[in-house]
């Protein structure tokens, strides 16, 4: 009489039923929605972007741009503060990551030491000041850089979310990775280029007066731009250049709303409304400058520069060379707000919904064909015991699906390959046991003894061989990215579940059969 303790039976049955319950929703699911199985506890399997279609983007915030900009801000503040304290200075410059200036007089002679110290201290703890002789250099320190990176990345994530998911319905994954990177995973994308257009621009909108003292051609030929102004390109290709005052009159932060519409000539345009503060400023500027062109600048390019006809408050219209899709996108990004820094796409993997569906179908067929072939081969090789192993194999597949659902792990296309591969390898443990039983039978043992010996002798081999494969899978998981990780997940799960099914499920079946039939001979 072969022994299989009752508690073990209970464990096996419990695990198998739990697996089935968790795997079941996938059978009835449609497009990942649970249908008619709401009473079950589990979720359907999380499909990777390569299977359901979608975009994976790894972005980098251009911190250097933010730092440089911060330095310009600091230098402007310093200029004002030093003038106020009447400390004379020269060559105040904002560099890529530092601000430098020189004192004209000996600070001790002028007795302004404490005022200078206060000014420098007021910059905040994020900055380090270095002084050698009359020269002073100001830089961001480690903590300052860290704060700046944190701020920039967090703000960027918020803006990206508002741009990609304005209605809050798409469940995008937007995560920070490392110091200055952001991972975006957006399921179900039809047009990945649109995604990149939406996050590819900073969308900094400013209104600046056009400088009438000189023309762009003059500035270009003489190489001199009037002080306080800059030369900006037109947003239209071949649209020339404009000389625009550096001073920003109204900027995008003061926008209350933006929407796509049409101008009086029925050309696509973006309508905007300013908030109270914006309306006040806009009214003042337009009132004071009637007859002057007012440049609408988006990301340092002049979209248009209409001449101010009358005083305008509150709302206005951005016209330019747009089509309807472009005005829709522009309105959306303006509503979402400007990014603190440009984003650089480091990596993109986008899969259209059609390919994803095809991949699932192909994977399913491969899995079913593989399963069928292995089942037939096992029965042909081991007869009834082959049937036992096949039942275990099917339980194994159910357990993998159940575990994937329960853990909410992501199933990717290589992950499906992992399941198919596991089916091939899962029978290995059974093969080891069966071969061992055959040997024991040839050695003249009786049926029950041979089975007992087969299991106990194969055990250490099974554990050794599976553990080593698990190591390989583990490293795949740790170092792999995206789809490869999915492969490692199903492979690891498959190794664990196949050990369980081979050692417990088949054994239970064999024990039940032997105890019921009490065979004198075993054909294996």
């Amino acid at each position: 009489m072969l022994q299989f303790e009752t508690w073990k039976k209970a464990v096996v049955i419990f695990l198998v039923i739990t697996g089935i319950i968790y795997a079941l929703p996938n059978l009835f699911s449609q497009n990942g929605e649970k249908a008619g199985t709401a009473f079950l506890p589990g979720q359907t399997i999380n499909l990777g972007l390569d299977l359901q279609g979608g975009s994976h983007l790894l972005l980098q915030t251009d911190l250097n741009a933010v730092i440089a900009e911060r330095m310009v801000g600091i230098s402007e503040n310093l200029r004002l503060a030093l003038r106020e304290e009447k400390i004379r200075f020269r060559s105040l410059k904002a560099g890529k990551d530092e601000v430098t200036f020189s004192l004209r007089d000996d600070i001790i002679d002028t007795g302004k030491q404490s005022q200078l110290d206060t000014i420098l201290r007021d910059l905040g703890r994020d900055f380090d000041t270095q002084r050698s002789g009359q020269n002073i250099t100001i830089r961001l320190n480690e903590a300052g850089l860290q704060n700046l990176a944190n701020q920039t990345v967090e703000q960027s994530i918020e803006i990206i979310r508002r741009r990609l998911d304005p209605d809050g319905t798409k469940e995008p994954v937007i995560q920070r990775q490392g110091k200055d990177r952001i991972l975006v995973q957006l399921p179900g994308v039809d047009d990945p280029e649109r995604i990149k257009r939406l996050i590819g621009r900073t969308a900094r909108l400013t209104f600046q007066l056009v400088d009438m003292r000189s023309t762009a051609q003059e500035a270009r030929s003489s190489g001199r731009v009037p002080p306080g102004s800059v030369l900006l390109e037109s947003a239209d290709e071949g649209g020339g250049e404009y000389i625009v005052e550096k001073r920003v009159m109204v900027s995008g932060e003061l926008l209350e709303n933006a929407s796509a519409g049409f101008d009086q000539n029925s050309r696509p345009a973006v309508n905007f409304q300013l908030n109270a503060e914006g309306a006040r400023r806009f009214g003042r500027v337009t009132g004071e400058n009637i007859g002057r062109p007012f440049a609408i600048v988006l990301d340092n390019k002049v979209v248009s520069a209409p001449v101010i006809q009358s005083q305008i408050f509150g709302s206005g219209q951005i016209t330019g060379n747009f089509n309807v899709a472009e005005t829709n996108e522009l309105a959306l990004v303006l509503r979402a707000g400007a990014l603190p820094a440009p984003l650089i796409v480091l990596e993109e993997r986008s899969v259209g919904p059609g390919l994803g569906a095809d991949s699932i179908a192909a994977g399913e067929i491969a899995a079913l064909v593989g399963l069928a072939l292995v089942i037939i081969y096992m029965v042909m090789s081991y007869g009834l015991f082959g049937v036992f192993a096949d039942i275990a194999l099917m339980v194994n597949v159910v357990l993998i699906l159940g575990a994937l659902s329960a853990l909410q792990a992501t199933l990717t296309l290589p992950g499906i390959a992992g399941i198919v591969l596991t089916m091939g390898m899962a029978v290995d443990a059974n093969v080891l046991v069966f071969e061992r039983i055959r040997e024991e039978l040839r050695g003249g043992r009786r049926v029950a003894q041979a089975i007992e010996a087969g299991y106990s002798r194969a055990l250490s081999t099974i554990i050794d061989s599976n553990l080593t494969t698990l190591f390989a899978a583990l490293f795949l998981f740790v170092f792999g990215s995206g789809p490869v990780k999915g492969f490692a997940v199903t492979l690891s799960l498959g190794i664990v579940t196949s050990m369980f099914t081979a050692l417990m499920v088949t054994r239970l079946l064999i024990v039940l059969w032997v105890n019921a039939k009490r065979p004198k001979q075993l054909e294996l």
Partner: protein
Amino acid sequence: MFRLKLVPSVPSIHFLKYVPIAGGVSIAAVLASIGLFFLVGLNLGIDFRGGILIEAQSKTTADIGAVRGDLETLGLGDIAIQSFGTEKDVLIRVQKQEGDERAQVAAIEKITSSLGDGYDIRRTEFVGPTVGAELAEKGILAVICALFAIMIYIWFRFEWQFSIAALLALAHDVLTTVGLFALTGFEFNLATLAAILTIAGYSINDTVVVFDRVRENLRKYKSWDQGKILNRSLNETLSRTVMTSVTTAIALIAIILFGGAVLRDFALAMLWGVTIGTYSSIFIAVGLISRFDLKRSDDEDNQIPTPEYERS
């Protein structure tokens, strides 16, 4: 009752006799692989080299010549275009563009707009140079760490000779697989790397099964000479080795035939791995330990559990 038996019940093949030949062939293959790796090099996919890959599906039959003509006018440098899967599908690979990541993204937009409405963009992959270098670094690290962990485990479970033999057999499998990719010019990408690690896992699995039997037989047949024991161990495990290789191969063939174009290369690499892994367990791993004088006493702690009926 009918039984399919690919291997006779008790085969008596003199495996060790072939070890010198197999060893020679393997050494030559490994050297050739290293040579190919350095002289020819791998056809690195965009995962490691950086670049752009676009899979597009035509509404009708894809005209690869026309697509090539259109894309070459864009001036994006080296463009490889091939049919992929069905006759409607084309795969477009574009080399890394001059300049930073922004230039790459601009190139993608140029290509998709050049393909126009006649094509449906099914997949876009772009890997910037920074990420490509990181992925390559991580990949190499993964392979090295995995090999090392496996070696430690084997060393822990068996004698050191087994550990060295297993590691060399593994290195043999990994190197010849890399060599095969250099020889055939198949694309070497992240999926290939995953395949190599899986091959390593499969191969070591196979080796461990044989080693387990060797260890057992070393204790069982104390008076036999070592060669005879090794040969017997191989013969005893041959049936299992073939069984498992065949079931795994069956599953892989199902993927190759039905799993779609994306998985095909991966499964092909694995199929090669199953073959080479089985070969190396027998001829390289066991061949190598036959050169050592193995410890025969069982005064260590790694004994096999004695079945109940054998206990007194």
